[in-house]
């Protein structure tokens, strides 16, 4: 009898595990997620394999083949210095994808830390954190970024610092509001009542549940940072020419937009494709998470 009950329990729990796993698979089979993920995977492969994908050098100047329109030798044409545009776009994937990923790390950590403390302790900690959020929010993002870069000096590393100084607010607000919800749930009260310390409760119980929406947000934010980096480089404040950065390439090609549209148009298209892939992934992850809530 007792064995029967135990068996039934075990059966039920394996069944639960199995349906949960099936659900997860079904959710990950989300159309947006698959398309976006595939494009991103291809882009990452292109970035990793860049030196072996094309016979040309992204920096070597060759005046004799300058301003050639797209053709067999140069599928994306050549720029005014005779450099193969396709090669530069491919090598640009290395700069732009990596920069987007690096840029997201520090605002994520800072924001999650501040938001967790503010959300869990409330009171003074919360007031101070939220006033800081208000202040940073008052600056238009790009203006603050440009101001900070002007003080720190142009370049990628300073851009990471500048991004960290204003982008943390998004994560801080997001995790704060989820923690507000989580900390009043029964499992936290239970953990408290058996004498769990604050950090133990945050670390083992509240945080893992609250951090997931932030991770999803971080995935889509990578697109934003790639756009910001490209924008700053376009303005001449980020990565400098001759580095094959997509935004800088668009800027360099702009004077030739009448006679040689490909110099600007194709690096720009690379930014758009990356952006679409990341926003599809974001949409897909959003769908999956909302399903999970039900």
């Amino acid at each position: 009898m007792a064995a029967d009950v135990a068996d039934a329990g075990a059966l039920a729990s394996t069944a639960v595990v199995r349906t949960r796993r099936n659900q997860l698979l079904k959710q990950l089979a989300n159309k947006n997620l698959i398309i976006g993920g595939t494009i991103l995977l291809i882009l990452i492969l292109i970035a990793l394999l860049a030196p072996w994908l094309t016979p040309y050098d992204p920096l070597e100047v060759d005046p004799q083949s300058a301003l050639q329109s797209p053709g067999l030798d140069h599928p994306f044409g050549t720029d005014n210095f005779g450099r193969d545009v396709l090669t530069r776009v491919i090598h640009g994937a290395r700069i732009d994808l990596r920069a987007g990923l690096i840029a997201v790390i520090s605002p994520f950590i800072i924001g999650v830390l501040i938001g967790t403390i503010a959300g869990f302790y409330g009171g003074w900690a919360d007031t101070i954190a939220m006033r800081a959020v208000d202040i940073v929010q008052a600056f238009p993002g790009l203006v603050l970024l440009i101001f900070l870069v002007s003080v720190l000096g142009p370049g990628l590393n300073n851009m990471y610092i500048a991004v960290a100084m204003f982008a943390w607010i998004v994560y801080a607000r997001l995790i704060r509001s989820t923690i507000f919800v989580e900390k009043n749930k029964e499992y936290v009260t239970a953990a408290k009542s058996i004498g769990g310390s604050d950090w133990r409760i945050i670390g083992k119980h509240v945080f893992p549940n609250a951090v997931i929406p932030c991770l999803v947000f971080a995935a889509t934010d990578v697109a934003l940072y790639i756009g910001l980096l490209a924008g700053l480089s376009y303005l001449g404040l980020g990565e400098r020419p001759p580095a094959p950065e997509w935004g800088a390439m668009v800027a360099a090609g702009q004077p030739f937009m009448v006679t040689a549209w490909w110099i600007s148009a194709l690096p720009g298209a690379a930014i758009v494709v990356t952006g679409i892939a990341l926003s599809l992934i974001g949409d897909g992850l959003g769908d999956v998470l909302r399903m999970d809530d039900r």
Partner: protein
Amino acid sequence: MTRSRYIIRRLIQMIPVVIGITVIIFVMLRAIPGDPADSMLGEKSTNEQRALMRKKLGLDEPIYVQYSYFVRDLFTFDLGDSLKYRQPVNDIIWDRLKVSLTVVGVTAFFLIVITVPLGILAALKKNSIIDNAVRAVLTVTMVMPTFYSGILLIIIFSIKLDLLPVSGYGDSPLDHLKHVILPSLTLALVTAPYLIRILRASILDALNSDYVTTARSKGLEERRVISLHVLRNALIPTVTLFGITIGGLMGGTVITEKVFALPGAGALLIESVQFRDYPTVQAATFIFAIMVITINLIVDIVYSFLDPRVVLS
């Protein structure tokens, strides 16, 4: 709580934010290596000018006194002289702001013209070809950097079709308007998707709500259900986001002005950064921030009229 009390409370909440903004600008400008007087005056300054500037900034006094001088100068709009143009920042910045505000105004017009019909259409014809087409196009324009869509618009409308000027701001008011059409369209294309999304979603929400079912069941004509009940409620979140978007555009114009060589405040900021013209950088940053928080304040006040519940809570 009455509405006037809500507005007063909102105004009081702005005070720490404005103080914070001045602190950030002050601290960051002091963080520049070297003497602040040198960075404020540039390399070509004479020793007398530097001595005068040191006195004005109060560099021999405690840091909080320096800060008080800084705040006094900002709020009396004594913004110093531009290093690049060799004239008071005040004389330059207001004309530049007019250009940026014109762009923002025309963008707002385009946003309404694009968002309202497309949002309604996409929601009412949910999952139709129209809805999917709108959403597909929006996914693309949303991720397009403005410096890219701007160039594409120049190629199409200025070079191929020869309808609008390539760049610059023109001389007469009508000419100005012609010159800001493409920049404004550029900004509208990148921001409209968010507005259309939220309008579509809130219309769909409203269509599923009890009050719409009630309105239908009492035999109200579908057109009247949509215009009286659905749209009225669905527009509230859209109007809020619209306000926030306009605030964001104040900064968004920076890149667009550069693409179209418009002499706006954003372009001024970039020029000043490249020239290390710190008095102008500081003034432009401060004015941009003040404009954003003012717009956010207006949005909140308008919102309190649209949705009286926020006043009560």
